[in-house]
């Protein structure tokens, strides 16, 4: 029973990792760049929700929508102002750029006087509710995470699989120039992808906030989402989710059965083993590089 309980909390945590990883995968799939600012976007989304709820006094649903809309706008602006000018430069430039954006975001939040350096509790309506079923206890917050993550990844999967937009994104990720010739508005599409990724991050932040707290350094959890994305294969949306869950469960079990200290590095050990055994991840496509 204890094992099952551990697995459940691991799955909930893993869903958060998966949710952030979905953002990575989304950006990678569509623009073939990796955003290191995803964790910070998540932090901004959580802070946005917090401000809407506590300072502006919005009801819960409106605050969530407002935070998501705000982050979508932020994602668009980010792409327009910073990412677009260096379109087509080596992927590493964008990695450094997003690291810089992450620094600025974290720094700016901590600079907010009397607000940014504290930890806050996000007042969600389902706080502290428990769901009991046959001796198992599932906190409502964790259940919300699991359900919403499943729904979101289903939606994204459908987007990439069945809609024109998603197929255009895939095309532009494989060869931007060719996609451009085919009449795909590559730049506008990239803006949309970043907006979508920012919205995903905001949702992740709002879901994570009741479980942990809202604080400026919560973005560092984004670094644990990298292993999740790699384990799933960087190009697979369901893979990101499965990867996240694997990482979450391993972490949760390692925290209980292994000596202290293993919990924090379990994710990284898993990803190193994965890279050695199967570098393309569980669901990744096997691809080789042309000259």
């Amino acid at each position, binding site marked *: 029973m204890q094992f099952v309980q551990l697995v459940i909390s691991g799955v909930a945590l893993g869903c958060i990792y998966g949710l952030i990883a979905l953002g990575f995968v989304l950006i*990678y799939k569509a*623009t*073939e*760049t*990796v955003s290191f600012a995803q964790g910070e976007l998540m932090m901004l989304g959580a802070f946005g929700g917090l401000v809407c709820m506590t300072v502006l006094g919005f009801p819960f649903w409106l605050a969530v929508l407002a935070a998501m809309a705000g982050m979508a706008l932020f994602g668009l602006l980010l792409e327009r102002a*910073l990412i677009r*000018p*260096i*379109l*087509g*430069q080596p*992927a*590493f*430039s*964008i*990695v*450094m*750029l997003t*690291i*810089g954006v*992450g*620094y*600025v*975001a*974290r*720094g*700016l*939040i*901590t*600079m907010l*006087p009397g607000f*940014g*350096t504290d930890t806050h509790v996000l007042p969600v309506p389902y706080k502290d509710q428990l769901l009991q079923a046959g001796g198992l206890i599932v906190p409502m917050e964790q259940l919300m995470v699991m359900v919403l993550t499943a729904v979101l990844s289903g939606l994204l999967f459908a987007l990439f699989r069945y809609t024109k937009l998603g197929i255009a994104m895939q095309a532009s*990720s*494989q*060869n*931007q*120039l060719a996609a*451009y010739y085919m009449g795909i508005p590559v730049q506008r599409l990239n803006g949309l992808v970043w907006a979508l990724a920012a919205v995903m991050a905001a949702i992740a932040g709002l879901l994570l906030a009741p479980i942990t707290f809202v604080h400026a350094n919560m973005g560092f959890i984004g*670094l644990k989402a*990298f*292993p999740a994305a*790699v384990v799933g294969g960087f*190009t697979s949306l369901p893979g990101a989710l499965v990867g996240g869950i694997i990482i979450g469960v391993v972490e949760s079990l390692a925290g209980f059965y292994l000596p202290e*200290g293993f919990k*924090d590095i379990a*994710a*990284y*050990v898993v*990803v*190193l083993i994965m*890279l*050695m055994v199967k*570098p393309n991840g569980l669901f990744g*496509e096997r*691809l*080789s*590089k*042309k*000259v």
Partner: protein
Amino acid sequence: MRFIFKTSYAQDLSLAKHEGHRFWYGLLGLLLLAAPWLLSEYLLAQLTFILIYSVVGLGLMMLAGFTGLFSIGHAAFLGVGAYTQAVLTNMGWPFPLAMAAAGLLSAAVGVVVGLPALRVKGIYLGIATLSFGFIVEEVFARWESVTGGNTGKTVSAPQMLGWAADTGSSFYFVCLVVTVLATLACLNLLRSPTGRAFVAIRDSEISAQSMGIHLAYYKTLSFAFSAALAGIGGALYAHQIRFLTPDQFNIIQSIDLLLMVVIGGLGFIHGVFLGAIFLIGLPQAISVVKDFLPEAIGGAPGLKAVVYGAVLVAFVLFEPMGLYGRWLKIRAYLQLFPFYRQGMFKRQKSFQKSDRLK
């Protein structure tokens, strides 16, 4: 404009290409030698830090700037070197021996990381090194019998044959010698077949392979060399800082190191030094400027992060060749005056092509 007339083969071989090089580097050398008498104790310590970071940065530059392999966990190698040095020095080993051991152990760790990393490229390599960095940091924190864990570990002054570098200026000279030797080693390596192979791998792995370059061997070698320099830098770092804790070797430090080579200028040896000056100088500059800013901005804890991030973003956007690239432009402007054109260093606009073609 300077025209170099080559009249002997020795000119091709020598590191200083013309009289200007000899003069300016000679002057720089003299200034560095005289630094302990010119600078205050505090500034000298900062200069020592610049030298130490330069050694580490040289390692990372060889890896990232010349072999094209990006490591987001380089602080781990720094840490391995630092702790090795701490343990061996406290056991009474003479300084050069301990430092060689630190470099070798770090290189060995680099090979261990490098081997699995051979199968992966690009961002996967970044994530592999990132993961490795986290694991090593945790090992530092947990292996308390050796590293002292989170309570930290003190390091005694470097000593050898009865002479101890226990003052700021004597240790500065130790660092200066190590830095000069490391720089010469890198410069010479870069013009040897090995260095050429590194650059070939950076420019195109497949063409390098077609030219008969053994990718696995050279990539591992690059990792080992880079890690060895980071380890040596770590050994110096241990002596300079005198007190080691695991969180000195965390992800922030790794990113700082990466930031240093990117801002300095990827692919230029000069860039390492400019980057190191920038990395050490910026916090000082911020603390100077702080007093003139309103309390709400100057006193805020996030100021440093914002400035670092903004500078990094600005460099990636406007000056991808880094500080040294800026100098190259200024030099071209002066040399060609008045014929410098706006577009001379312009980046070619391009569309991204995928790495993952079926």
